[in-house]
Every structure is written in C-alpha cells, then in structure tokens.
C-alpha cells in the first residue's frame, strides 16, 4: 500500500528525517517507535502531505504521491489521526465526523457504525462542540473522524495519548478488528510499548531522524527496542 523511500525532511536548516524508508501493507499493522523528538510525527506528516520533503519518494499503491497536496492523498485513502488531536473546535461532534465525507463517494456518506460502537460517548455528544470535549474525548473523536473517511491507509500518531485504559483496550481491539477485516493498512506511532507489541505485525524504530531498526513481530526484540528508547 504505502512505500516510503529515502526521504529527507528539513525544518529550515535543521534536518528532521534522514533517508527514511518504510512500507505498510493492507491487512497489517506497522508500528513506529522512538523517543521524543526523533522525527516520528515528522515522518507521518510527510506521508500525509502536511510537510514537504526535500528528496525521496512516497508512493501509494505504486503511484508516486510525493508532490500531491494532502487532500489528494486523502482522496487516495490516507487518513490521519494527528498528534494533538486537531479537532475543529467550533464544529459539533457530528460535523467533525462529517468532514470525513469529503473524500468519499456519495453512497459512503454515512458515519460507519463501528465508530459509535467503539466510542459510545461520541453518540451521546453529537451536538456538543468539538472544542469543548475533554482531551480524551477529542482523541476518540479524532479516531472516529479518520474512520469516517473509509481509509485504505490509516495513520495514527500516538492514538492512546490521554485515553482512559478501558478505551485503550477498545482501541486495541478495534485496530485488531480493522486489520482482520483486511481492507486497510495501518501505520501506528506509539510510545506505549506493551500496546505496540500486542498489535504490531511489522515495526520500525527511529532515532535522530533515522530508522535504526525494523522487522516483523517475530523478530521484535523488546530489549533492543527499549535500548533505543532510552537516551
């Protein structure tokens, strides 16, 4: 589904990504790990088109999308749950969800049932403004909103941040469910190692803007990873 090849990314003169390569496939969860400030978010933003890359390529289903604006990538099936939630504060919960209709075809303009199954709070708060929700509720809304886009590549940036344990478990189950349904690739950034470990089919570890380790669940070496995660 997604192939990232040798991308470099700069903030002004500072380089945040150095020749990063990564891929994510339908029906699999790819987990990206790393300490604070190593460039995980930068990588995800580059994939979604929110941050321009200096070189390298990003392709979806074999098509190069490196130069496409974010909305065109969204139309090709990329959905993002960003760090910091980025809810539309003045839109109601319902409207927030409905923004996800933009890239989908007419007959899919309906919020999928699994969103409300997963996050029953949202159902009860449809008319409340997104900005008034609590942090965790916003996080749930952000995930629901991404699912409304019926993505082929779901990109999640620390989706469990600020979420109560029971819902984290639900999210884990949901990710498992989505993986099993087999219609999307999932790219997950997570600091919460146990959670990542449970879900990941493939994983990659970043440090200082580079991928320093990668492999499949079978080769997942918790200790080695932990080493990269400490200073």
């Amino acid at each position: 589904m997604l192939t990232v090849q040798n991308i470099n990314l700069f903030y002004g003169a500072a380089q945040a990504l150095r020749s990063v390569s990564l891929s994510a496939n339908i029906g699999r969860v790819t987990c990206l790990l790393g300490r604070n400030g190593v460039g995980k978010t930068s990588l995800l933003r580059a994939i979604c088109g929110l941050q321009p890359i200096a070189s390298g390529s990003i392709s979806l289903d074999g098509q190069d999308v490196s130069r496409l604006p974010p909305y065109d990538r969204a139309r090709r099936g990329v959905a993002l749950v960003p760090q910091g939630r980025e809810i539309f504060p003045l839109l109601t919960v319902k409207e927030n969800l409905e923004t996800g209709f933009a890239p989908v075809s007419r007959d899919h303009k309906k919020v999928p049932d699994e969103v409300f199954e997963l996050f029953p709070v949202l159902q009860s708060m449809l008319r409340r403004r997104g900005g008034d929700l609590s942090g965790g509720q916003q996080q749930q809304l952000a995930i629901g909103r991404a699912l409304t886009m019926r993505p082929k590549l779901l990109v999640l940036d620390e989706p469990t941040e600020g979420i109560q344990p029971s819902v984290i478990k639900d999210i884990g189950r949901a990710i498992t469910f989505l993986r099993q349904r087999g219609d999307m690739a999932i790219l997950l950034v997570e600091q919460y190692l146990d959670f990542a470990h449970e879900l990941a089919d493939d994983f990659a570890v970043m440090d200082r803007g580079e991928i320093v380790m990668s492999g499949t669940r079978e080769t997942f070496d918790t200790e080695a990873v932990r080493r990269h995660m400490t200073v």
Partner: protein
Amino acid sequence: MSMTEQRSTSALLYLSGVTVSFDGFKALNNLSLLVEPGEMRAIIGPNGAGKTTMMDVVTGKTRPDEGEVVFDGKADLTKLDEADIATLGIGRKFQKPTVFENHTVRDNLLLALAGLRSWYKLLLAAPTKAENNRLDEILSIIRMEPQQHMLAARLSHGQKQWLEIGMLLAQDPKLLLVDEPVAGMTDVETETTAQVLREINKTHSVVVVEHDMSFVRALGVKVTVLHEGSMLAEGTLDQVSADPRVVEVYLGR
C-alpha cells in the same frame, strides 16, 4: 459537618460541593476533595470525568456554579483571578502543553521562575547569579540543556511536555497541579517523570492527573477516582483497581 470544618483549616486545598455546568451538562457534580499539605494525590477517571475541569476551577479559569474552593485554609479561590491564585502558590501544567513559542527554552523557564512578577520591578530587573544557577539546575532536571537556546516552537510534543514540567519547577509553587504529564513520553521517561515528581513532593504538594496506570503505580500515592463529575472511589491504586465500579467505567476488562 464540624468534622469538615475542622479539617478545612488544616487542608491545603479544600473543595466542597463544587458544581460546574455547561449548558445544563454537569461537568462537576457536587465534588468534594481534600489535599493535605505535603501530600501527593493522583486523580484518575474516565475521559470527561471532570478532572481538567476540576483544575480549571482551582486555578480560576472556570468559576463554579456552586461550592467552596479554599486554599491554605484561608483564600477563597472562587473570588480570585488566575494571577492571584498563581501568586498564592498554585502552579499548573496543562493537558495540552502550552509554552511561549517565540521564546527560547531558557527564557520560558526564566519567565516561570518564582519571584518578580510586577511590571515595574521587571523593568529594572537585572539577572542574578542565583537565578541563573536555578535555571541551569532545572534545565538539567528536564534534560534540555542542549535545547536551551532553541525556540520553544521548534520542540517536539514530548519536549514541550518536559518544558512545561520545568516551568512548573521554576515557578516553585506550594501546590502543583499536573495534568497528564507523561502523555506522549516513552516508558523510560515516564519513570523519570515519576521520580521527578516524587522528588518535588518532598517539599511541595502535588495533584497529578494521569491515565497511565504504571505511572500512577510508580508514584505510589493515594488515588482518587472521578466519575461524571463526582468522586467514585478513593484509596491506594490497588484498592481502587479492585473496585468493580472503577473497573467497569475506567479500567475495563
């Protein structure tokens, strides 16, 4: 009744019957809470339970519809504004990290540093050695010496979290309200943060909100569980974790 009154004098933070509603929705519902001097308290509870709102009430951001909020046995916080409350000695770290983006890390800490606050004093203030030492100290605690001259805008999410903790340290308040300090931190950093907080707790009172149970466990303090704006349970983490209601609404199976 007399019991509470008596305790209210000794408690550092005293909330009684606090209710906050937004357009009919009760975010806090008759909440009462006591924090003793020198105590560290963890507060957990489902998303939307009202934890952040409780902090908003204490720091003066939100006015309660009903109820009493007393600090240090004398100050009625419902009558004071944010700056007054901060001056009394209540510091806060926000759930969504908020730092001064156009200032360097060091200047962020300098602004937070306890002491000068009035405009005419700052106009003529010269940097002192003590202050600089203190800043260096904090920078090393939060491990941001390399970034100290970087603009805060360029920090990653987790680094901003650390900076906010550093600002809280610099502010040196009597009571620290810490909202989800370890969100977005690695497991190792989570442990470090717990250590830092325990260290602080030796001299300060702390209220921590967090969803990370391992972190709460590492703190090893009394836990209050909020639910739908009121207190659901209180006790050690093990005690509350065993409470079926807490499992039902919060921890999950």
